[in-house]
Structure formats: structure tokens, C-alpha cells
């Protein structure tokens, strides 16, 4: 390590002011003197006032650290500079601190106050870096300070600081694992964060601190899936790996049905025992079930959202997606990963090495996947040996009857390679091909036999070993080859090969009874000139022949044994003596003699030629453990698929309805609203939390969505609670509390429509009045339905209006309240204070909006347990829905059934319309086993029946949801409603407006889409608006009540736009209402589906005319 100028930090002398100085070599004399004051100059420089001197000193110190030299004695001098103004000095001091603080804990404490000050800095980057260094100092005393800092940073308004907080969590955990519970709380909070910046880091923290707490993921699962594409690449790897494990615990195996058919067919050919047992298990499982498999939509979501990442430039990401597909995807879909993996083979050799290991494992299970890319695994002479051997492994795994001839031709080239290790591996590979594919066994054997004449000992030895293995499988059929090999003894000089041949002949001497003694004769002749290993095998051969064919070979054996008796090698002499005693019966030889034949000619098991990569896939692919084929420290087992799928509703995050639709089905139309994400709904909030000023339209859109999404979580569990209680108390209403609840519910129902408008407060009062009426009155009358939907939006907007004024205090108040209330139960919060602040208004001031979101996420966390317990029953989204009669009380003999369209996506199938059915038992007997049967449907229509209701007590009401795919037609769905005694024929006919789901798009997109749907697809109608329908909100109200559409923002004053997609085919329905002077208006509907368009026009006009 010659001291170059930049490196000369170890010089003595005190006057070196930055310029390089030579002449003092610590290795040459005066070591002690220079050691003693070795760093005096550095200390002096650090104490000086000049930044440049300090910097120079710090640079030298860092160079020392880099080389691994000890610089710990400078600690006091360095730590003083922690508050230095110069940024680079400061940074280098940080580097030093992080390196040595662990050794000098007391002194390190001096620096803490600086970081604590930094944590309060108005600049987010300084806050972040202070937290980063503070958490990197491994001093146990400051654990409480770190904990506090992390907690604070986790609710920082800057996502970058929150990211740093996530990074700090594993650091603190490694320092003091007792903090786990508190850290998990922070993780839980950060997991709910909606920014891409935080997602990767917090999942990393999750993996290090509490990978077993899979329950924390439920609520964030869909969000993580949707954010994934925008997360930075390293975060993607971590998230994908975690989600793989998650999916294995939560979903059913997508291959349970196929495994039966496919694998048993395959098994016949190539299966080995182990696979069989596995298959048998799978078969048993699938037989036991026999249920048709339907993939969980969340499972599908994960597969769909990870697929584009196969195109990543980062090999680790590609590998992560590949393993996810391998472990989670249905067999038919796994193929997509092959192309990407093959692409990685172009990368650096280390990457190739890892990828090939994984391909080798995959190619055993899924041979077909890589078959088209066979040629990509051909070996070049320039590949490193370890890559060659792995490629060979893959080629061997891919070999089958159709391609074996090409592969063998390729192997022929390899055998002549100069790289002998590789040649040996090739010979083994040929052996494996020969065992797996019966057709080519003879060809391979012949080829291998030819190799026996190779000059290279290694090649011959390897060939003989492989031939030996092959022959051991079917010795009877190959006496020809044994004969041929016997002939080779004349030519082959390589001792190892000769020895192997002799062993073979000895072992199978019964198959070549005529030749074996002759070989022994020849060998006896040349015995003295043979190598030692050959001599040993000659003795073996002689012994075996003596036992099987003593008549012909007795004398020869004695001759050989006599020769051996006087051999120079004591090993051979010993062996000869031993064998003579064993085989030649004498008086002394005793009992062993009887068993000699058994000893020598015992059936020796044929060696199994199989891939070393077999069964490696019980390790998660792409993991270190898989690569090493041994469990690495901290490896998380990949769980087996569950037999029963856990409750999928735990993942319901209660985002507003439209978000679900858009993220599930309508993604294609909406490109690049949030940056590059295709997950509009979820990443909308990303931006609002990002404290980056956005364009106005987007801001309002995203903030409203963040508001609604957070508010809806409380709503859901509240509703679910009510779902039961409400119906029971339907008739005996009037209690104040009930009323209160109802009001809340409607208020939150409003945001679902997501059309924020500002409305005066008088209207709210008016609505208030109506609400009371509605609450008191019986449900289901048309007029009321409409008015209540009006209230809903009115109250929603007013609540958001009042918010913007009093936001900050509310938030603080709520925060204070939160602590006691968490004990009291989440329900209380949602009832009392939540509606005050849940929908945060579009606030240009970033700080407050961020606090409020993080607060809201807090509360979301609180409600978590409640929702997960509640059943996945969906009650109608809001009071606005019209209720239809399915079965009248009279016709149903006391059983009355009503239904309404809840306007929520039907869980399980996005193409179905959810129909909420309410059944009340007005008889005085219990009604049992209520169910749907014998649906009579038109072609293409499908019904997802509700689960059978066991019993319904007299006076009780039950509410269930069923899904119907109407195929975008208004044809009725007919079916029977059965009880234990009666069958009722009923039918559900959907209004055309219910056959669609709202779509949210920007004005431009709307125009663009509209441009595509002109001509035949456009229907225009003139109408006059009645008096009461001449306000903005009344129009919107009427249209949205007539059809399940979403409003599209519009620049013009007198124009209203709505968009939706039909539920089954997903074709767009665009509605434009132009309000001209006075009462005149023009309605335009654009849709591919002309029938739907026409009917919709009619319906809307009717609604508006009322």
C-alpha cells in the first residue's frame, strides 16, 4: 500500500496544511514516536477555524477508514465538528460517526443534540439526514430518543422523511429487539401510507421486523399491488417477494384442478417416485374438493400488476416477478416469464449464474416453458465453466423425444471441448438423457462406448462410470456392449477404464459366460504388467468367476491369486489372501464361505441419475437459500397453499366504489393521470400527500378521493353493523340514536357519487328535515328515495365546506381525542367526530392535508379489527336506491321479498351487477332453507346465487346479495325462490341505468372517447327541463339516480357530462346534457350499444321531467 498523495494521511509532522507531504514512513524506524503523536496534525487541523483545513483533515480520516485503518483515537476531535456549517465536512463527520460511535459510546452522545435539532429543521432533507445518522449510530442508550424520532418522522408531512423513518425501523430493531411492539405500530402506520416513496422501505422494515404479521398486509394489499409499478426498483423486489408469501397464505392454488389431469399424464413418462407422492397428495386434495376453482380477484390483481415488471431493466425485479409467477400463477400463464429470464442470460456472468440456477429448477417442473428457447442455452466456448455446467443442466432438463437428436448433436461438439471439467459434465448429461429417454439409450451408449477410446483419462473414466450406471439399469439387454467393452481391453490403456471394464465383466459375468473367462485368461497373462487398480479388479473378476463358473476358471483364479500373493504392492497381497480365504472352501474358512457368493454378487442398486436441482423448488425461487440449497439465516418459508381460502373480505379497504371499478376493469382508458401508474384510484392520494402542487383539476380529484377513501373505511363497518340492526328495528324506529346513525350513513353515502359541489347551507337544513321524515317513514317509496339521495350529496358537500374553515383545529382536537377513544372502541370515533373532518378539502396548504391524511390512516388502522370480523355482507350504498318488489307479501304467503341495485361491484365477479335482496318473514312460522334454484336465463346470462339462508324467524328480515350478469341487456332474469315448503317464480328486470358502473375520466379523455363514438353510436334528444330541475345539482341528482354513472368535470357552465361503462362488456356510455336558455336542453348519449343508449335517453328524460 504505497502512499499516494491522496493517501498520505498517516504522516507525522504538524505543519502539513493540505499539500502532500512525503518522507515519513511509519514502517521505517521511529514508529513509536510517530505513533504517539501520529494524528496530532489531524487534530490540529480539525481544531482550526478554517473549513478547508477541517475538510482536508476529514478527507484523510475517511481515506484511513476506507483502507481499514484505525482512526478511533481521533473521535473527540472529530465529534466536535458535527455542527460544522460546511456541508461536506458535516457529511464526512457523519461517515466517521457512524463508523466509530459504537466503539466510543459516551463521546458519541455529545453529537446527539445536534441531530435532535436537525430533526426539527424546516427543510425536509435536513430532517431526513438527521434521522438517518441518528438511527445509524448504534448506541443503545439513545434507543428511546430514536424511538421518539422515528415515531415523529413517521407522521412527518414529507414522504421523504417518512421513507427515512421506515429505513430507521430495522436499525432500531437490530439495536434493541424489545422495541418490537412499538415498531410494529409504526410499521402498521407507514404501511397505510399511500406514497410510492415509502412503500418499498416500509415493506423492507416489515420483512426484517415482523414478517410473520401477515395480518398487517390485508388492508394494504390492493394498494401495494396498485402502487407497485411506480415504486423504485429495489422496493419492487422486496414487495414482490413479500406478496408472494402473502398470496400463498391467502389464496387457493390455481392449479388444483389441473394437477389431476396433467401431471398424471406426464408422470407416466418421466415422473419419479417423489413426484408421484406429491401428485398423489394433490390429487387427494383436489378429489376431496371437486369445487370449480375461481381465482380470487385479488390474486388476479397481483398477477396482472406484476406482469409489466418483467420488462424492467433490473434483473432482480425480473427474477422476483418470475418467481412470483412460478409460485402463484396458473400453469397456463407461467410461460410468460421464460422470455424475460432468457433475456437476462445476456447480462453479466454473475447474473447468468443466478438466473440459470433458477431456470434449472423451473425447467424440471415446467419443461415446456423453456423449450422454445432451447437454443439460447447452447454453450459457447467463451462461457466460464460454471455457466457452461449450468447451461448443460438446463439442456438436459429440457431434453425430450423430439429434441433429443439436436441436443445430442450439440453435446457431441461439447465433448471435444478443451475444458475437461465441462467434458466430464457433458458425459454425465448424456447419461442422464439416456436414462430419461428410452429411445436414445442405445445411441447414447454407443456414443459413450466410443468415448472409451478417448485419450483423456478423465473422459474415459467418466464415460465408463456413466456406462456402468446405464448398464446397471438393464444389464440383460446389454450383453452386447459388455462384450464390446471386453474387446476394448485389448486396446484401452487407461488403467481407470480397464479397471472399470473388468468390474463390469465381473459383475455381469453371467450375461457373458463365454467371454468372461477369456478376459480373465488374457488379464492373467498380462497381470504383472498391469497397474495396481487394474490388478485389484482382476482379482475381483477372478473371485466372481470362481463363484459362478468354477469349472472353467478355477485354475485361472488360483493362478491369479498366486501371482497376487507375491506382488510388490501389499494392498494386492492382502486382497489376494483375503479373497482366497473367502472363496476357496477349506476346513478353516468356516461359515463365511457359504455366503461368499452373496457377498460378491449381491444385487447392487443402480445409481439414480437425476438433476441436482430436483426438488429445490421448495425454497422460494430467486432466494439465497434456493441458490445454496440450504436454509439461509432469516429465510422465510414459502407456505403451502391453504386448503380453504381464508376470508377474502379482510382485504376490503372500503375505497369508494368508483375506485374499485377503475382499477379493476377500466384501466386501459385512463393512461397516465398519476405519473406512470395504471392504478388511478389508489395513487390519486399519492399525489395529494406528496405536497407537490398539482394542476388544479387533478388536485381536486385526488384530494376528494383521498377524503372519500379514508372516510369510507369507517362507513363500511358501521354499515355492516347496521346491516343487521337496521332491518330488525325497521318498524320500531323513532329512537334518536338510530336516527343519528342513519344520518351519518347517508352522509357518507354521498361521497360515493364523488361529485363535489358547493351548495348553500339552507339546503342542508332542508335536507335535515327530510331526513327525519325519511327515518320515521317506511322504507322504499319512490319519492323518498329520490329526496334522500338529494340529501346525501347536499350533506356531503356541506360537510366538506364547513371543513375547510375549521380544519386545523379539528385535526388537533381529533388527535387528542384519539388516544382515549381508541380504548373506547373505534365505533365511537366514527360516530362522533369523524364526519367533521374526514373528507379533507382540496387544500393548497400541504402541511395540513398531510396531517389529516396520516390521521385518517391512523383511524383506518383502528377500525381494522372490526371490519375483518364482520361478514362480507354488503348493504346498499346509500338511501338513494330505488327498491323493487320481487315477491309480494300476498303472493308469497307472508314472505315478502324486495330487491334493489346496490351499485357496488359484485365481489368475485366484476361483470355481475350486485342485487341486494331483502327478505322479510311476515308469517308466524319459521321459514327454512331459503335459496335460489332453477334459474331460467337467456344465453350468456349468469347468476351468482346468494348463500342459502338456513332459517328466518317470524318477523325477521334478512338481507343478501346476489350477482347477475345481465349481458348488457334489460332482459329479466327468472329464477325460483325456494323455501323448505314452497317455490316462487320470480324475476328481476334491471333498469338500463343499473347495467353500468361509473367511470372517471378527465374532460380531455371524455372528448377523445366521444370523438370515437359518433354517427350511429350517438343519440341526441331535445327536452325541456321542468322548474325544479333547473339547478345544477338537481340535474346531476336526477341523472345519477336514473343511471349508475360518474360525473366528468366540465369546463363549460351549462354542460354536464357523465361517463360509465357497461358492466358486462365494458363498453363506454357517455352522457352529455347541454342546458340552453330557459328550459330547453339537449341530451346526447354516446355508446357502442345503441339499444342501451336509446333506453338510457328515455330513462334520463323521464327522470328529469318528473
Amino acid at each position: 500500500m504505497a502512499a499516494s498523495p491522496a493517501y498520505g494521511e498517516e504522516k507525522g509532522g504538524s505543519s502539513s496544511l493540505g499539500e502532500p507531504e512525503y518522507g515519513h514512513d511509519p514502517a521505517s524506524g521511529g514508529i513509536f514516536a510517530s505513533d504517539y503523536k501520529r494524528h496530532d496534525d489531524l487534530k490540529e487541523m480539525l481544531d482550526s477555524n478554517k473549513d478547508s483545513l477541517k475538510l482536508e483533515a476529514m478527507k484523510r480520516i475517511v481515506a484511513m477508514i476506507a483502507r481499514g485503518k484505525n482512526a478511533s483515537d481521533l473521535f473527540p476531535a472529530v465529534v466536535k465538528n458535527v455542527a460544522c456549517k460546511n456541508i461536506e465536512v458535516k457529511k464526512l463527520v457523519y461517515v466517521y460517526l457512524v463508523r466509530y460511535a459504537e466503539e466510543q459510546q459516551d463521546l458519541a452522545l455529545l453529537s446527539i443534540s445536534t441531530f435532535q435539532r436537525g430533526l426539527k429543521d424546516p427543510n425536509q432533507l435536513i430532517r431526513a439526514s438527521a434521522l438517518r445518522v441518528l438511527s445509524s449510530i448504534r448506541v443503545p442508550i439513545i434507543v428511546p430518543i430514536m424511538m421518539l424520532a422515528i415515531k415523529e418522522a413517521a407522521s412527518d408531512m414529507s414522504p421523504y422523511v417518512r421513507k427515512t423513518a421506515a429505513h430507521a425501523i430495522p436499525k432500531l430493531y437490530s439495536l434493541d429487539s424489545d422495541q418490537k411492539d412499538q415498531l410494529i405500530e409504526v410499521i402498521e402506520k407507514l404501511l397505510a401510507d399511500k406514497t410510492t416513496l415509502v412503500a418499498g422501505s416500509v415493506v423492507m422494515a416489515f420483512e426484517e421486523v415482523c414478517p410473520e404479521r401477515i395480518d398487517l398486509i390485508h388492508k394494504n394489499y390492493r394498494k401495494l399491488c396498485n402502487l407497485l409499478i411506480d415504486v423504485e426498483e429495489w422496493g419492487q423486489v422486496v414487495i414482490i417477494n413479500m406478496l408472494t408469501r402473502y398470496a400463498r397464505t391467502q389464496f387457493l392454488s390455481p392449479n388444483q384442478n389441473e394437477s389431476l389431469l396433467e401431471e398424471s399424464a406426464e408422470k407416466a413418462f418421466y415422473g419419479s417416485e417423489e413426484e408421484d407422492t406429491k401428485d398423489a397428495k394433490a390429487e387427494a386434495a383436489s378429489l376431496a374438493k371437486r369445487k370449480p376453482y375461481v381465482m380470487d380477484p385479488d390474486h388476479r390483481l397481483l398477477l396482472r400488476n406484476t406482469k409489466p415488471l418483467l420488462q424492467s431493466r433490473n434483473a432482480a425485479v425480473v427474477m422476483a416477478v418470475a418467481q412470483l409467477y412460478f409460485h402463484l400463477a396458473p400453469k397456463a400463464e407461467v410461460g410468460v416469464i421464460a422470455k424475460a429470464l432468457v433475456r437476462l442470460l445476456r447480462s453479466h456472468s454473475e447474473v447468468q449464474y443466478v438466473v440459470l440456477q433458477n431456470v434449472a429448477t423451473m425447467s424440471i417442473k415446467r419443461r415446456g416453458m423453456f423449450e422454445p428457447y432451447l437454443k439460447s442455452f447452447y454453450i459457447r466456448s467463451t462461457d466460464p465453466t460454471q455457466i457452461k455446467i449450468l447451461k448443460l443442466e438446463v439442456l438436459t432438463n429440457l431434453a425430450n423425444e423430439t429434441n433429443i437428436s439436436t441436443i445430442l448433436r450439440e453435446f457431441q461438439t461439447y465433448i471435444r471441448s478443451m475444458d475437461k471439467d465441462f467434458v466430464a459434465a457433458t458425459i454425465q448429461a448424456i447419461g442422464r438423457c439416456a436414462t430419461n429417454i428410452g429411445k436414445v439409450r442405445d445411441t447414447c451408449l454407443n456414443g459413450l462406448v466410443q468415448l472409451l477410446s478417448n485419450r483423456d483419462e478423465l473422459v474415459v473414466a467418466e464415460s465408463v462410470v456413466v456406462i456402468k450406471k446405464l448398464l446397471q439399469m438393464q444389464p440383460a439387454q446389454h450383453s452386447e456392449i459388455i462384450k464390446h467393452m471386453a474387446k476394448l481391453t485389448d486396446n484401452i490403456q487407461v488403467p481407470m477404464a480397464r479397471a472399470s471394464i473388468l468390474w463390469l465383466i465381473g459383475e455381469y459375468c453371467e450375461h457373458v459366460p463365454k467371454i468372461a473367462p477369456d478376459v480373465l485368461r488374457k488379464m492373467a497373462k498380462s497381470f504383472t504388467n498391469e497397474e495396481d487398480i487394474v490388478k485389484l479388479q482382476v482379482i475381483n473378476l477372478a473371485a466372481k468367476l470362481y463363484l459362478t463358473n468354477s469349472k472353467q476358471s478355477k485354475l485361472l483364479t488360483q493362478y491369479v491369486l498366486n501371482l497376487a500373493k507375491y506382488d510388490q504392492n501389499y494392498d494386492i497381497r492382502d486382497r489376494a489372501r483375503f479373497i482366497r480365504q473367502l472363496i476357496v472352501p477349506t476346513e478353516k474358512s468356516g461359515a463365511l464361505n457359504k455366503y461368499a457368493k452373496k457377498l460378491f454378487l449381491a444385487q447392487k442398486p443402480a445409481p439414480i441419475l437425476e438433476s441436482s436441482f430436483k426438488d429445490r423448488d421448495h425454497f422460494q425461487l430467486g432466494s439465497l437459500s434456493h441458490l445454496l440449497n440450504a436454509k439461509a439465516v432469516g429465510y422465510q418459508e414459502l407456505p403451502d397453499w391453504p386448503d380453504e381460502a381464508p376470508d377474502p373480505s379482510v382485504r376490503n379497504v372500503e375505497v369508494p366504489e368508483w375506485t374499485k371499478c377503475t382499477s379493476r376493469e377500466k384501466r386501459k382508458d385512463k393512461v397516465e393521470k398519476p405519473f406512470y401508474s395504471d392504478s388511478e384510484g389508489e395513487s390519486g392520494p399519492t399525489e395529494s400527500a406528496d405536497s407537490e402542487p398539482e394542476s388544479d383539476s387533478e388536485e381536486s380529484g385526488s384530494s376528494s378521493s383521498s377524503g372519500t377513501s379514508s372516510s369510507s373505511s369507517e362507513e363500511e363497518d358501521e354499515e355492516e353493523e347496521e346491516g343487521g340492526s337496521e332491518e330488525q328495528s325497521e318498524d320500531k324506529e323513532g329512537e334518536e340514536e338510530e336516527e343519528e346513525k342513519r344520518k351519518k350513513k347517508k352522509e357518507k353515502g354521498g361521497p360515493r357519487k364523488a361529485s363535489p359541489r358547493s351548495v348553500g347551507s339552507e339546503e342542508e337544513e332542508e335536507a335535515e328535515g327530510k331526513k327525519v321524515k325519511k327515518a320515521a317513514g317506511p322504507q322504499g317509496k319512490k319519492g323518498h328515495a329520490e329526496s334522500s339521495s338529494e340529501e346525501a350529496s347536499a350533506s356531503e358537500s356541506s360537510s366538506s365546506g364547513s371543513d375547510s374553515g375549521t380544519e386545523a383545529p379539528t385535526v388537533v382536537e381529533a388527535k387528542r381525542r384519539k388516544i382515549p377513544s381508541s380504548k373506547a372502541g373505534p365505533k365511537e370515533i366514527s360516530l362522533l367526530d369523524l364526519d367533521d373532518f374526514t373528507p379533507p378539502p382540496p387544500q393548497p396548504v400541504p402541511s395540513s392535508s398531510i396531517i389529516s391524511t396520516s390521521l385518517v390512516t391512523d383511524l383506518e388502522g383502528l377500525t381494522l379489527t372490526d371490519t375483518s370480523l364482520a361478514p362480507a355482507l354488503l348493504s346498499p350504498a346509500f338511501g338513494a336506491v330505488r327498491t323493487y318488489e320481487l315477491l309480494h307479501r300476498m303472493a308469497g304467503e307472508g314472505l315478502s321479498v324486495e330487491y334493489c341495485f346496490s351499485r357496488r361491484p359484485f365481489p368475485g365477479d366484476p361483470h355481475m351487477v350486485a342485487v341486494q335482496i331483502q327478505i322479510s318473514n311476515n308469517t308466524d312460522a319459521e321459514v327454512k332453507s331459503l335459496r335460489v334454484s332453477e334459474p331460467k336465463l337467456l344465453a350468456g346470462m349468469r347468476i351468482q346465487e346468494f348463500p342459502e339462508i338456513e332459517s328466518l324467524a317470524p318477523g325477521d328480515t334478512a338481507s343478501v346479495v346476489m350477482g347477475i350478469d345481465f349481458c348488457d341487456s334489460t332482459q329479466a332474469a327468472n329464477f325460483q325462490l325456494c323455501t323448505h315448503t314452497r317455490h316462487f317464480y320470480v324475476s328481476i328486470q334491471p333498469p338500463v341505468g343499473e347495467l353500468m358502473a361509473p367511470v372517471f375520466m378527465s374532460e380531455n379523455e371524455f372528448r377523445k372517447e366521444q370523438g370515437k363514438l359518433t354517427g350511429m353510436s350517438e343519440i341526441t334528444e331535445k327536452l325541456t327541463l321542468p322548474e325544479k330541475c333547473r339547478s345544477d345539482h338537481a340535474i346531476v341528482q336526477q341523472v345519477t339516480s336514473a343511471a349508475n354513472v360518474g360525473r366528468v368535470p366540465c369546463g363549460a357552465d351549462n354542460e354536464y357530462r357523465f361517463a360509465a361503462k357497461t358492466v358486462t362488456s365494458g363498453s363506454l356510455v357517455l352522457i352529455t346534457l347541454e342546458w340552453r336558455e330557459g328550459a330547453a336542453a339537449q341530451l346526447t348519449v354516446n355508446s357502442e350499444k345503441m339499444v342501451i343508449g336509446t333506453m338510457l335517453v328515455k330513462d334520463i328524460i323521464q327522470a328529469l321531467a318528473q
Partner: protein
Amino acid sequence: MIHSLFLINASGDIFLEKHWKSVVSRSVCDYFFEAQERASEAENVPPVISTPHHYLLSVYRHKIFFVAVIQTEVPPLFVIEFLHRVVDTFQDYFGVCSEVMIKDNVVVVYEVLEEMLDNGFPLATESNILKELIKPPTILRTVVNTITGSTNVGDQLPTGQLSVVPWRRTGVKYTNNEAYFDVIEEIDAIIDKSGSTITAEIQGVIDACVKLTGMPDLTLSFMNPRLLDDVSFHPCVRFKRWESERILSFIPPDGNFRLLSYHVSAQNLVAIPVYVKHNINFRDSSSLGRFEITVGPKQTMGKTVEGVMVTSQMPKGVLNMSLTPSQGTHIFDPVTKLLTWDVGKINPQKLPSLKGSMNLQAGTSKPDENPTINLQFKIQQLAISGLKVNRLDMYGEKYKPFKGIKYMTKAGKFQVRT
């Protein structure tokens, strides 16, 4: 995740160490040296080595081993990819990544490493962001720094990390706005003894050098996007747009970057632009062998083949070669047995050839295998797959940029078996 990093040079010296968590003694590298000894060549050192308490993951580039120490389960590619990214960053910063360069800039290296990982987890790996955090050393800046005492560390705080386009620096300004795209295609092929193609495929990349002011939004479209079979993108490319319209739409990073790498679909027959005629004979009896190769153009679409270079690893038995080339220069290294022939441009009228004899070691039998011939060449202004850029448009900024597109075809792993 990544605990520590050791840089080891060819002679086995650890010349840099960096720890992100507690210090791991450098003696852990002994396991690595053991493995290195076992593997005859540097490329054969296994990238993953398991030791009793740690795992060593290494990459070998520019004659330096980058050895990362990890303690717990982590996807190996994660670490390997990261290490390669580190090397790329060094190269980007210092022009070359060599031991001398790293030693000379040890402080910058240390600062960069500090920013790239936090507690072993990658933090900032985009070169645009790193360069904002820590300015790369240039000669001018070194001079200025020594005089004024100013620093390499950026004094404004980097905002790139916080933006929605994390790969682009903010506040970029140029007087000349220009965007250059190089479409470079490489042919990977194995040609067998008789001259027929065993396997051939085309891999391509589009490397960009974009120097544009502000936040430009570019779109690049192809005449024949169908050719692209498998693509991988820089994170800036909007995937959905590509899926639906086959258009590359992106906000580019500032400076040089690889926009896209692609693979041309296998259905298209690959045109092989050169052929090699060879006659290599070892005779059993005598200690002389004959060696004769000729390189000629074929299917070059009228373009000249340049920069042709032939290398061949001769069997161990070859002691020396006496050859005469018709053009270019050749070298045979008797120690490594590597024959290199720098041919230059191929003139179709007068095909370059290399003829002569080989001296074999007396007494040994003739080598089993004839040497394989590795070929390198370049063809300017041609993308062998026929890929053509249709147009490049810029949105979001007012000025008119200068745009340029260049095509080139190269040999990738082009091997002729003899």
C-alpha cells in the same frame, strides 16, 4: 441487507472497505480467497459463497472483485444487480473504474457509497440524483476546489429524490438542446463447422444522450415496432403507452442512459453479415499444423464491414504459430495461447486471409478439438433487423431541439466452430 463491501484487486489486496452496519472484520474475505484459489480463473469464482456466519456475494469487473457481505436471506440478484450498479456509477463518475481511480478519489467513492445504501438497503441509485448530491470530480473542479476550498458536495439540496420523476434532475439548462439516439444491434450467433447457422439472434439497445432544457416529454415511434419481441425499459418509459400504441413515451433522464433494450423475434431469419472459411489441421504424425482462415462479407445490405477482429483460443499443445496476414496485424501469445488478428475493414474484392503453420509440442498427441473462432465486427448505418425509428417528438417545452439517430450493427457473441 448488504452489510459491508470489500474491493479486492487482482493481487488479492483489500484496498477499500465500507460498512453499513456493524463492522465486519476483513478476515471474512479469507473464505473468498480460498474460493478464488480453487477456481483457476477469475470468472470461475462462484458469485455466491457461503461461510459459517456470512454470505459473500461478488461480482468481477474491471479486474476488481466487489465483494458484498450479507448475513441474512436476501435475493442474490438483488445484491449482484446492486453491485453492478455501483460499478456503473463509478464508471459514470470517473470515466473508468480502476483501482487507481478509486484510490485517487477515495473520498468521493465513500460519499457515493454512503448515499447509495442506507443500512444496507439501496437508497439513491439513479446517477442523476447522485450527481446532484455529490458532484463528480472534473479537472476544473479539482483545481477550483484546491484554490477556493469549496467542495464536491452539492450545496443545494437535491430535490430529484422527492419528485415524481426521480430519475431526472430539476433545473436542467442547456444552450444547445440536443437529443441523440443510437440504435445498436448485436448479433449473437454460433456457426458450425460447415458454415451453417446453429443459433443466431439479434439483441438491440437504444442508448440515448439527451441534453434538453427543462422537463421535456419525448415520444419515439418506430416504423416497424412489430419486430421487437421482448423489450426492457428504462423506468422512465410509460409502459401502458407502449402496450397500447407501441410508442415510447418518456421524460428522459439528463445525460446518457439506456432507453430500451430489445430482442428481435425469433421468427425473423437473422442475416449473417460475414462468413469465415477455415482450414485448421493438426497432423498426428508431425509436429506441424496448418492454419488458414479467410473472412468475407455476406448479406451486408451494401454496407462495409469494419473493425473486424478475430480471436481464437488455441489448444494447449500449440507452441507457436508462424502466420502471414494479407491485411491487418496479428499477435499470438504463447503463454495464454490466444491468437488475435486485427483485420480492420473487409474489402470484398480482396478478402483478408491469415495463413501459416502451427508448431505443436513434440511427442504429445494431436488436440481433440479445433479452436473456435470468435469474431467481432461493426457495420455503420445499419440495423440488421431492419428496425427504423419513425419519428421523435417533444412536448412540454417550447424550443426546437436538435435530434439525431444513428444505427449500428455489431457482433455480439459471434462464434464459429471449426
